[in-house]
């Protein structure tokens, strides 16, 4: 039988099998080994593996359950040692690009209609080149704008802002307006207009999305640095201006996500770009002084008219070396199908399927805050894009962030900081043989 005919036969079988619904007994006797992310919040979904086993007759043997950082190390040692006998692995959009040869393209095993049921930006972020290396589960992260409603309802603020700018005071829709309002609201050291993550990957991620919103790119197509541009300079200026104006806490350059979350919950920060996981915490009577006073809105846009949207999501992948890819693809589709995503998103995480978005928004009816949060994040999700898909992303962030900090703290000019960062990233990429 010709190779082509074999391929079409396999695909035809697979297409029947997949599309998220498993056919009875079709994988009798098959055992799939899986390495999955472990943790309380991820466990509910794994109960559905049993249902898939019953329906298909296959067996799933979970041989590893760890957090993503540990799984990442395990995948790398599997690649080094060639121990790739397992079939299904948890994946994450921020890690996926580090192992381009590990996972297979899922497109031949799924129908186009089935793929179209996912949010397009999530599917785009699940690809390496044209290969769909994972199917996204309902664990999606993108940042939207949280703000204190009271500062916008205050009559003195309204009048003063109108007098100062000639515009009505409303939550910002552009990053320039955001900066202007943050400076306007600041009453240091008791109250700050905003704050931002100031170190490690966190600040580079924020810088990255602002560069995109300003119409630029962090990297060129050949992965040479592209951020030493006008867009890059405008993006960095945003951070520098806020710091110079004292509109952010002076320690913001050492803040990471927890510090930011606690900061906004202390009720002393007016505007905060943050992740969906904080929504409940910010409005919780026991956890937050801002409870009852929190508004949520889609993230602002840069001068290019593009909204920020650095995002990440969890997914499941099938290894290239798996000897039963159809069964593995069927399991992966099952774990991310509509019912699975409804189950997982009922506990709070954001879905990655369009129909499930509709479901979670309608099931939040009657809870005004939850509805506002979901609508804002649904809008936010439509602008999402993943971290740059290079295995050297983290190494690049370690070279970029000290330079961003140097500009923010006034040790270097914006031009010098970006030029030094760009030079360092260029050298690193060349050293790694990227170009």
């Amino acid at each position, binding site marked *: 039988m010709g190779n082509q005919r074999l391929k079409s036969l396999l695909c035809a079988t697979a297409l029947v099998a997949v599309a998220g619904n498993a056919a009875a007994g079709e994988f009798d006797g098959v055992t799939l080994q899986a390495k999955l992310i472990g943790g309380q919040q991820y466990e509910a979904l794994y109960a559905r593996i049993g249902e898939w086993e019953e329906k298909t007759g296959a067996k799933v043997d979970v041989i590893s359950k760890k957090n993503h950082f540990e799984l990442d190390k395990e995948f*790398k040692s599997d690649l080094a040692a060639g121990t790739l006998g397992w079939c299904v692995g948890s994946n994450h959009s921020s890690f996926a690009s580090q192992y381009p040869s590990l996972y297979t393209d899922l497109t031949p095993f799924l129908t186009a209609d089935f793929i179209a049921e996912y949010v397009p930006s999530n599917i785009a972020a699940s690809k390496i080149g044209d290969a769909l290396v994972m199917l996204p589960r309902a664990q999606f992260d993108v940042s939207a704008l949280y703000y204190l409603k009271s500062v916008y309802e205050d009559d003195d603020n309204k009048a003063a802002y109108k007098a100062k700018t000639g515009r009505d005071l409303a939550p910002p829709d552009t990053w320039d307006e955001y900066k202007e309002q943050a400076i306007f609201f600041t009453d240091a050291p008791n109250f700050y207009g905003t704050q931002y993550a100031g170190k490690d990957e966190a600040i580079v991620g924020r810088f990255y999305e602002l560069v995109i919103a300003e119409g630029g790119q962090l990297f060129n197509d050949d992965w040479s640095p592209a951020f030493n541009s006008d867009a890059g300079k405008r993006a960095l200026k945003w951070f520098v201006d806020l710091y110079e104006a004292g509109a952010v806490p002076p320690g913001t350059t050492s803040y990471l996500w927890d510090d930011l979350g606690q900061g906004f919950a202390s009720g002393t920060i007016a505007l905060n770009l943050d992740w969906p996981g904080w929504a409940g915490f910010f409005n919780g009577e026991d956890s937050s002084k801002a409870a009852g006073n929190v508004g949520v809105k889609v993230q602002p846009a840069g001068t290019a008219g593009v909204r920020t949207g650095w995002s990440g999501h969890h997914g499941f992948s099938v290894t290239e070396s798996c000897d039963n890819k159809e069964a593995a693809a069927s399991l992966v589709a099952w774990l991310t199908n509509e019912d699975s995503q409804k189950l997982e998103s009922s506990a709070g995480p954001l879905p990655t399927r369009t129909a499930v978005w509709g479901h979670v928004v309608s099931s939040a009816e009657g809870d005004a805050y939850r509805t506002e949060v979901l609508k804002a994040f649904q809008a936010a999700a439509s602008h999402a894009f993943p971290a740059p898909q290079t295995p050297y992303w983290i190494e690049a962030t370690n070279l970029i962030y000290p330079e961003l900090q140097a500009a923010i703290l006034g040790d270097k000019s914006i031009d010098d900081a970006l030029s030094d960062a760009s030079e360092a990233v260029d050298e690193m990429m060349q050293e790694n043989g990227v170009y």
Partner: protein
Amino acid sequence: MSRFRPPPWFVLLLPAIIILSAVVLIPLLLSLYSSFTPYRLTRPETLYKWIGTYNYEKAIESAHFWAAFGRTILLLTIALNLEMLMGLGLALLVNKVTYGQRTLRTVMMFPMMFSPILVGFQFKFIFNDNVGLVNNALQSLGLSNVAIPWLVDGQLAFFSILVAEMWSSTSVFAILILAGLFAVPRDPIEAAKVDGCTPWQSFRHITLPYIMPFIYIALAIRSLDVARAYDIVQIMTNGGPARRTELLWTLIGRTGYVDAKMGYANAMGYISIFLAIFFTIYFFRKLNAARSELGMAG
């Protein structure tokens, strides 16, 4: 036919040789070898590519490396001197106590019982600009009406790290010097009193020479500690912001484990080891000189 019989000294030393080879010698040689390769943790095949002294040249030409090197020496010098002076003062005070001295000695050792990671977290909170203890105290007492960026300003961050280091380790000096004070013979001090020496003169010319060997031992131990300072700094500032508090080991740790460039990190590590070797030799020479002054040189 005679069977080969290894000499008894070799057989007796064999367990020690095997253990030392396994846990020290082989890893040391392997890391030395890897410093001549572009070894990346994520790409094991890079361990077999020889690149000569490229990593060493890169480190020697790197301004960031030398800045971290200089900062580490500065921290070492200031921390050791201040800890020594404070430890000496503390030991002299505790030595005067006649009631409850044992309890005091135990209390003095409390900071040494904390993991440096926890000390880092504790001082990170204390010096936090927004919710930290120091700023809140200063603002409540009306001494300041601004949020002082303790962990952001280069000099203040250095000072904050210094305070954390001193809090956790001054007692090392105090305990060792106290042990030295217990060993000072009473006769020469009483003879000095009879001869009309002032307390300062008897301290300077009798007590101090006797405790100098103990001070040098403490200095040697702590110099190795500070030269490899990592945990407290990693937690408090992670070498930042903008590399303002970058020390050798925060730089090397990040290069090796976060960037996965273990070959380059090892090369920097080997250059840095000279720092530790230099201080150790220096303090041991001083120790021997102090001992020979007391007629104890062997």
